[in-house]
């Protein structure tokens, strides 16, 4: 990630072709035999992140089997599938959160700006600043609202002085649509907010370090319907600036917020496609069974 070019328009052709090379979904020989081929086009043009043949193991157990998937710009990719199928595991690969789990191994390529994020010399610190994450249960730090937002900018040294930090906190809260609700009590503990507000606080916290990609792992599963609606709206707005990958167990939510949908089943990526197509006209039998509610 050290080679990032801010202007972004002077990269070599060699790089260009390598990244845009069509993916072979049935690539390597090391892949286990019971792997299912993915139906639909896993690639997009000009992706923000590109995963190729990702396998994840928890000790001996394989949780993700040869999954390839692109995360495009300005889009929300929804990942659905029965619980335990590996959605969270896959999502956590994208900012190497699996590093923190003992016994978890990831193989395959996950490219960001042409660099493999698992490659040598790649530090997780800037990667995670670039690929932020919002978790299932809102997890504000036991600090004030202000300190929650300021946490990222502080550790990364993003703000030169207090005014700048104030500004970052304000803009982040505004983008997360929380400013109006909390501007008078920035110094009160973040844990005192309601569930939905807490989750928006966590989104604001993520935004405060200017990520490119935001990963969300069932961000609404602990919230009531009204809070959920607010977050969904927020996600739709955030799409303007960020790529978003969201895991959800609610198909309605996937349908409402996402442009593309990926259906996982027992560690396999079964089908990927435009959200509309996946929900109205699934190709794979398993996808159809799932969205028609035959299992879940």
């Amino acid at each position, binding site marked *: *990630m*050290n080679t*990032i*070019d*801010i*202007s*972004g*328009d002077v*990269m*070599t052709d060699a*790089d*260009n072709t390598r*990244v845009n090379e069509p993916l072979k979904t049935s690539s390597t020989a090391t892949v286990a035999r019971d792997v299912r081929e993915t139906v639909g086009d896993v690639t997009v*043009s*000009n992706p*923000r992140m590109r995963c190729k043949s990702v396998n994840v193991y928890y000790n001996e157990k394989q949780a993700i089997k040869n999954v390839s998937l692109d995360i495009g*710009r300005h889009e929300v990719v929804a990942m659905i599938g029965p619980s335990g199928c590996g959605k969270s595991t896959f999502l956590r690969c994208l900012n190497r959160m699996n590093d923190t789990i003992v016994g978890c191994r990831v193989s395959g390529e996950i490219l960001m*700006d*042409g660099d493999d994020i698992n490659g040598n010399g790649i*530090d997780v*610190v*800037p990667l995670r*600043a*670039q690929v932020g994450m919002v978790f299932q249960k809102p997890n504000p730090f036991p600090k004030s609202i202000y300190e929650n937002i300021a946490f990222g900018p502080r*550790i*990364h*040294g*993003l703000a030169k002085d207090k005014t700048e930090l104030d500004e970052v906190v304000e803009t982040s809260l505004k983008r997360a649509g929380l400013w109006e609700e909390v501007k008078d009590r920035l110094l009160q503990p973040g844990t005192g907010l309601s569930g939905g507000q807490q989750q928006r606080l966590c989104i604001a916290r993520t935004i405060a*370090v*200017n*990520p*490119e990609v935001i990963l969300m792992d069932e961000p609404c599963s602990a919230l009531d319907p009204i809070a959920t609606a607010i977050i969904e709206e927020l996600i739709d707005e955030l799409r*303007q*600036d*960020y790529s978003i990958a969201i895991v959800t167990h609610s198909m309605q939510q996937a349908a409402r917020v996402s442009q593309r949908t990926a259906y996982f089943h027992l560690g396999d990526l079964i089908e990927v496609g435009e959200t509309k197509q996946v929900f109205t006209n699934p190709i794979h039998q398993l996808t159809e069974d799932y969205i028609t509610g035959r299992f879940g």
Partner: protein
Amino acid sequence: MNNMSSQTEIDEAEIRSRRTIEIVNQGLKRRRAAEKRFRFYGKLAISMGMLFLVVLFASIVSKGYTAFLQTYVKLDVYIDEQKIDPQGTRESETLSRANYGALVKSTLRGMFPDVKSRRDKKDLYALVSNGADFEIRKRVMENPALIGQTLSLWVPADDDVDMLLKGHINREGAESERRLKDNQLRWIDQMWEQGRMEKRFNTTFFTAGDSRDPELAGIWGAVSGSFLTLIVTLLLSFPIGVAAAVYLEEFAPKNHLTDIIEVNINNLAAVPSIVFGLLGLAMFINLFGLPRSAPLVGGLVLSLMTLPTIIIASRAALKSVPPSIREAALGVGASPQQAMMYHVLPLAMPGILTGTIIGMAQALGETAPLLMIGMVAFIVDIPGNVFDPSTVLPVQIFLWADSPERAFVERTSAAIMVLLTFLIAMNAIAVVLRKRFERRW
């Protein structure tokens, strides 16, 4: 990214992000260094802990291992009838009162005929322990036929001789600063060369009670005292502790009183042990008139101290038995107490026993409260029951540690090694018990 130019709108977020990453990367080296430093502190702390442990054990073992050997002197004692039983009665009364020291002295004089002056003789006699007299008496009393014969036996050497041979006395130093004089060194060397002196396994240390003479002092009295004390502790604290745990965990209504009891128990676990000693002194000894220095009182005090440990452990064990077991028992018509006695308690027993053993190990190592109730007295006899005055192993260690003789240092360390062996064994049993019966519901 490379395709940026093909996009119509300027992706502001992306530009912001790139700038952020640049700043992040700039600070990265510093942060990684800080990370390393922090990690190093952690490792350092752990290593210090380990180091202390190693130093502690090394210092004790290195000081103490020599105590398991003791220097003995071989004497060929002529059991002179004239000296011990001139009337030839062979009555045990006479035999037990006879002056065996004289036999030892004459034997020593015989070994070194050129020792003439009174002072030199005294120095010579000092090489052999008083224990020699007792040893000869014991042999003669066992077998009066020995009288008139020459008995060849190994008797303990004096502690100074022992210390010299173990390298704790500097031969080179000025004579006046040494505990052994030059001529004594000469005699010792002579005996050593003749094979009349030898280091042998120190059985006395394991079989004798306390003594003022290091070479005659042993831990058996203290071990017996510890054993008796622990028995009392166990007999009191185990049933009471389990009963309290059962009540608090299973039957007690959740009200203020049980809250107070709970706080009380947790607090008692943190009350300084010496305060329990004050309780023992004021209540058991001064008020109830129980005997001082007795294992009974020691056990009473220690059981009050171990109760919290046992109660807390037992409650945890009871809590870990799933409610389904109780429900099943109640379902077939058992009363709550029957369900408890026949179904829950047996399942919780391994956990309870583990807690009990750990509590007993704590009690075994406890010293301070026992000082308060007079178990510090100098007691030679081996206690036979819980009313006999006695001491316990840790207190014996305390007493010996206070003694000026160099030879008591190694005995103190050796006694510590014995104590630690007991403790390690008890904890190992607790661990095994826990591992063995660990159940995941």
